[in-house]
Every structure is written in structure tokens, then in C-alpha cells.
């Protein structure tokens, strides 16, 4: 959302344009505050606000084209039966972070609270490290870590991934196609694939795709490959 100009005339124009969405209560944060503040001081906008409220009521009261007959699915059903639909893999839902995460959580300043937090953070970090080590051991020697000295030959945005046993090749392709990905290598003996992405996918986008893959029920393991981790170190992208 663009900040509204400090110039009073520009603010008036911007607020005047936003009034319909103030009426339908969908404005948020900065825009909402700006509109409310301006409305208190501008009789023109206040008058227009009242007009738009009346318009909103009238639009909602109008009975024109209210469905009077029950929906008839039969014609559509006939149409469906002329073409057989093949089951498709749904697109993966993005990870939606709860809104409360966007605001920093405020804790007390007692030393007890801080030390408890520090212990909890250390414990979580240890758990993450151990789980990564366990994952690497399960996968075998084909999985490279940053400390490996093997030459990297893969795409720079590569991801290592293992799908569930019963996942069909078609389903794998659909998952990868949905994020402009393709198979570079695999599957190896441990069913591990190395996948890459088209050139238009940048590092941050590759990590977004990694998150999507991790949340896909058909995926049992997904971790950044050597090239992607290396770019993370260089560019400071957060996995």
C-alpha cells in the first residue's frame, strides 16, 4: 500500500477516491487512519461519505436479479458427462502465517523470562540441528552439506526432495510444473530427487517453493541443495 501524500489537496483527492472502500469497511492500517482523520476535518468528504452510505444501502436493498428459481444443476451435469475429467493434483495452499505473528510478541523484562526464552530457543535450535543430521544420515551419501568437498554440478536453485512412496510420476510432474520446476536427477536408491527451477525463479522464490513443497502431503522430505544454500550465504536470503 502506498503512503498517502502529506500535501492536503493530494490527501483530499486520495481520501475522496478511497471513500467507497471506507464505506464497505475493507480499508486497513494507514489508509483507514488517514481517511478517518481527514473525514473529521473535511465537510465535503463527510457529505460524500453519507451519499455513498446511502448508495451502499440502495445496492443491497435492490431486488433486481435475485435468483427466484432454484439452481438447476442438470444442464451442467449433462455437459460434464460429455467430457471425462481426469483427477488432477490440487495446487498447494500457501503457508498462511497467523496475523499475530506479524507483530513482535512482547514479553516481560524479568531475568527469569529472558533466561527461559534463551533456554527454549537453545533447545529448539538443538532439535532442528539434530533432526537435520538425522535426515542426512537417512538419505545417504548423495546428500551434500555445506561442509562437503564434492564438486557441485547441479543447478544453483536446486532442492533435494523425496516424495511419498505411492506418488505417481504424473503427480510429481504436476507438483513441479505448478512451480516451474523440473527434475535434474533422480530418483536414486533412496528415492531422492534433485529438482531445479526455470531461470525466472530467483532465490527467494525458490525458498518459497521449498516451503510449499514441505507443506505438500505428497512430500516427505525437502531441503535446499548445495547451490541454493550457497546463494543463501552470499545474498542473505532467509530459508
Amino acid at each position, binding site marked *: 500500500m502506498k503512503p498517502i501524500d502529506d500535501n492536503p489537496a493530494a490527501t483530499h483527492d486520495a481520501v475522496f477516491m478511497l471513500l467507497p472502500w471506507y464505506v464497505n469497511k475493507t480499508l486497513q492500517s494507514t489508509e483507514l487512519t488517514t481517511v478517518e482523520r481527514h473525514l473529521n476535518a473535511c465537510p465535503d468528504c463527510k457529505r460524500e461519505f453519507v451519499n455513498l452510505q446511502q448508495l451502499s444501502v*440502495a445496492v443491497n*436493498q435492490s431486488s433486481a*436479479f435475485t435468483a427466484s428459481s432454484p439452481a438447476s444443476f442438470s444442464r*451442467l451435469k449433462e455437459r460434464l458427462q460429455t467430457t471425462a*475429467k481426469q483427477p488432477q493434483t490440487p495446487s498447494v495452499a500457501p503457508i498462511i502465517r497467523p496475523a499475530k505473528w506479524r507483530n513482535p510478541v512482547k514479553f516481560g523484562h524479568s531475568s527469569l523470562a529472558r533466561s527461559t526464552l534463551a533456554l527454549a530457543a537453545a533447545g529448539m535450535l538443538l532439535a532442528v540441528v539434530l533432526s537435520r543430521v538425522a535426515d542426512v544420515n537417512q538419505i545417504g551419501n548423495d546428500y551434500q552439506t555445506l561442509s562437503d568437498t564434492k564438486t557441485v554440478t547441479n543447478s544453483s536453485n536446486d532442492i533435494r526432495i523425496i516424495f511419498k512412496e505411492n506418488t505417481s510420476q504424473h503427480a510429481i510432474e504436476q507438483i513441479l510444473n505448478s512451480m516451474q520446476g523440473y527434475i535434474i536427477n533422480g530418483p536414486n536408491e533412496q528415492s531422492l530427487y534433485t529438482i531445479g527451477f526455470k531461470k525466472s525463479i530467483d532465490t527467494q522464490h525458490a525458498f518459497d517453493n521449498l516451503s510449499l513443497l514441505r507443506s505438500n502431503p505428497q512430500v516427505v522430505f525437502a531441503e535446499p541443495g548445495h547451490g541454493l544454500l550457497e546463494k543463501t550465504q552470499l545474498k542473505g536470503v532467509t530459508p
Partner: protein
Amino acid sequence: MNTPNSQHDQEAALIRRICHADENALEQLYHDYYPRLFRFIGRTTWREDLIEEVINDVMYTVWEKAATYNHQCKLSTWIFGIAYNKVRQALRNDGHFNEDSLDDMEVDNAWFGTEDAGLMQLETHEWLDSILKVLSPDQRIVIELTYFEGLHYNEIALLMDCPENTVKTRMHHARKILAVHLTDYKNASGLIN
């Protein structure tokens, strides 16, 4: 009553079932959206004869393209986006949708007509229905999506596949036209002395 989250979950489940060619799930979605689509298409095209056909086209597209719904927007926004494109297509086929006039306030009055003569007898919402016909289809769509569907301008921009400022401009032009006709209506009704 469904909370937004439970409605979202139910709709996501329906889409997953539709991806797996479950006709019962499509039928449920069809019944859920029928009244809203009926109104949206009716008030956008002002053509009752088109409504059923366009609804069926919309829901057929949902059936065919369910796997492409990526959950980046509300399901209703995705479905209304499909409906918007089908409406454009239907009006274009009938020669009533002029691509050149999408972003300005050119109005085909020869087609929509004006009904000023009867305004005195009309209730406010009837007056509105009469005046809405004077707006261009895109202006009516923005009015309907804002006030009836309660969408934010950025959702409307996404749905209409246009910049946010275009949505604001279409609304602005619509408001100007409505204001002029409202003044005429009030004068004709003796509401302004």
C-alpha cells in the same frame, strides 16, 4: 453460521474433491454460489437470458481448472474473476462490450437507454436499478463488487486483472454519473427545493 475460517476450509475441501472429479462437490459449490452469481451476472449484463448460460460456463470452468486455483486469493474472488471474464465474453459476442471504452466513461446510451421519465414514481433502490443501466458494464461491476460483495479495491483489481488505480477511476466515474442522476431524481421528486 460459518466463520470465515470454517467457510474457507469447507471451500478448500470442495475444490480438492473437484480436482478428483467429484461431481457432488461441484454440485454443492454450484448451489452455494448460484444466488450470488445470478445477481452478479444479472446486474452486470442486465440480460436475464444470459444468466443461466454464463453461470454454467463459470462452473464448468471451475470444474476444468480447479487444480489451477492456488489459494492466493479467496475462492469467491477466483470464481467471480472467472464470471467477469465470461460476462465480457458474452457481451462481446453480443456486440455490447466495447474494449475501447473500458477505462473511460463512454457509455452506450443507445443500448442502455435512459428512463428519466419514470423516475418520479420510483423508490430509491428502483431509481438506482434504473441508473445503473446507464453505467458501463465495468463501472457496474466495480459498484456491485464493492457494495454487495464487500471487496477491497485490490481484490477487485485482481479479479478484473487491471491496476488498482483503474478500479478507483472506474468507481470515481460511476460516482460522478450517479451523483448527476441523483440530483435530477431529487429535483424531479421535489426533494430539492
